[in-house]
């Protein structure tokens, strides 16, 4: 009984890691743009497709396919960032919703047109199970956990010490003041956006071997799982996102075990409703930042 609970918590942490890497990109983009990026899951999908293409068509190894997945997403994110996201600075919230929803449809359907709507099969990755602390886990999941920790340590350091990180925080606090003191706001927006999209792609590439199926619509569910996490974590809050993702991952895992798998997605949406009712500014902030 006790070991079952521990095992389910471990499962939840692994699931939480996947969510965390995707969600942190979305929350950072929200920070600088004040816009929910509804196309965020599509970058997760693009990364996965890039890697799948590299393995299936180019015959590359899984390690090389990670690079291909990331690079192809960065290119797309650069174009989208230049053409669309930079124009969102100072635009009303509706514009952001419409633009990112539109981009989601365009990206999704382009991929379906090019590669077809059927499910693809991702081969590659470290899928052999390893035994850790008495639990059986695929090597790939341990990789995801480690990468997640590294990503968050890296991001913490970046937003605290680097010039770009400090500019991001500045832009998320006050756009007008940034312009006054000479911070290049569109550039910060573009960089944040590319970083966020690349993190989503990284999450996609890392989970592809354990999720096996690759298809055009796979990003949608990820976008909707991410929403409650970034709200729970406090919009724009990197550290908060990490803990929120872990909480959601563990809660989902326990619900799937003790209530029923069919109620799993309910957890995220119920959390979203409760958060918006009682703490719309997140679990870890005492007041609204925006």
């Amino acid at each position, binding site marked *: 009984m006790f070991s*079952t609970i521990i*095992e*389910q918590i471990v*499962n*939840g942490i*692994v*699931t939480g890691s996947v969510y965390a890497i995707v969600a942190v990109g979305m929350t950072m983009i929200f920070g600088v743009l004040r816009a929910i990026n509804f196309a965020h899951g599509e970058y997760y999908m693009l990364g996965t497709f890039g890697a799948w293409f590299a393995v299936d068509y180019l015959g590359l190894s899984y390690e090389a396919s990670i690079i291909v997945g990331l690079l192809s997403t960065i290119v797309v994110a650069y174009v989208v960032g230049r053409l669309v996201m930079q124009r969102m600075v100072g635009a009303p919230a509706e514009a952001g919703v419409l633009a990112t929803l539109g981009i989601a449809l365009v990206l999704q359907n382009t991929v379906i047109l090019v590669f077809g709507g059927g*499910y693809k*099969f991702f*081969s590659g990755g470290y*899928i052999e*199970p390893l035994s850790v602390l008495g639990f*059986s*886990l*695929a090597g790939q*999941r341990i990789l995801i956990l480690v990468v997640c920790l590294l990503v968050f340590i890296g991001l913490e350091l970046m937003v605290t010490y680097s010039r770009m990180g400090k500019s991001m925080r500045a832009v998320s606090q006050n756009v007008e003041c940034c312009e006054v003191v000479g911070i290049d706001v569109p550039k910060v927006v573009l960089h944040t956006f590319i970083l966020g999209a690349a993190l989503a792609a990284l999450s996609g590439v890392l*989970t592809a071997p*354990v*999720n*096996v*199926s690759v*298809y055009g*619509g*796979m990003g*949608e*569910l990820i976008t909707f799982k991410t929403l409650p996490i970034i709200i729970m974590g406090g919009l724009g809050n990197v550290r908060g996102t990490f803990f929120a993702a872990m909480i959601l991952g563990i809660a*989902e*895992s*326990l619900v*799937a*075990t003790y209530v*029923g*798998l*069919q109620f*799993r*997605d309910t957890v995220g949406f119920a959390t979203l409703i409760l958060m918006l009712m009682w703490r719309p500014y997140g679990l870890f902030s005492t007041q609204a930042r925006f």
Partner: protein
Amino acid sequence: MKHTLSRRALCISTAILSLAVTVPGLSSIALAADGTIKLGLVAPMSGPNARYGAFSMRGAELAVKEINDAGGIDGLQIELYSADSQGTPVEGVSATRRLIDEDEVDYVIGDVSSSVTLAMQPVAEDAGVLLLNAASSNPKITYAAGVGGFKWTYRNYPTDENRAFVVAKYAAEQRGFTKFAVLSVDSDYGRSAIEFTKKYLPEFKGEILTEDYYKEGEVDFRSVLAKIRDSGAQAIIMYGLADTTPIIARQMVELGLAGKVTLVGNGEFNTEKTIKSAPTALEGAVEAAAWLPAWDSPESKAFVEKFTTTYDEAPNNHAYVHWDTVHLLAQAIHEAGGNDREKVREALSKIKYKSPVGEVTFDDHNQARLPMILLQIESGKPSIKGAYTAEIEYPAQ
């Protein structure tokens, strides 16, 4: 002047048409005179299930061509009309009406999707046109047919209930499983298959230890598989989606369930792609299908070969069942002694049709008694374990 004329013509033709429709005997006599049999096919030609529609159409076309080339049915040629249901009940109903009212077909074959077929049933019943279903598996369709209500609906396809029964019987009797876990897709298909499994499982002393349903697009099964592992279940009853099976199979390997817990049910366990994803987890898996290209009978092999040379693509289940159903109808028309709807309907109820999977007869609910083909994955390859027929226990009227 011209305007009034055409309106009058319209009135008269409508009057004649409605007369023809309300008196079925009259219309069939009128239509039989021109020496052709008009057959309508309703299938999803566009939309997400367009692939199934295309296969259905090709299967039916091939059968019509075979029959016509061999001189027709007692000299009568078949003319095939098709209409697009788009996989939705609303479009399916208007497609059926179009076939009956405008093309004046005597027989309708359709649809693939159960919800569309359910909506088509009253339309065909009102018009007194035979609706012969070839590919919908929801048991409700024939629960409400024959003595259950709709006299003009027949189904030449095994139901989810047949499938559930056959799988439960095989798993219990041939494999000796008594402890089961349920992991099915959260849809009408997944849930109704489990409902029927529960109806028959007590007969085989089987019990269900855990029961879970997954949403379409679910990718994380670790929690539920760990629960199944700890429950001590011997087999997982799964009526799932083809694209999710590899995910579950891989996570079974991850959690050490492979080789200990067997998958039974339906969800494309037998394709090369799925088996390759996790060979150890799928070894021994049991699946029930209405038909598959590997089915070993001369007629079935000949069909696969003919279809492949004609269309440059191997047939799927939908192509086969529509091809087979056209041949079944042709035999019924032949036995009825001509193109008379009422007589054809009576002939169908009494028919003994030899299909490539076995002899087909209809029960009093107009449901064909059809075998399900059971296959088991052995050494990474599907191996056919035989065809099993199940008699449906209908609830009391």
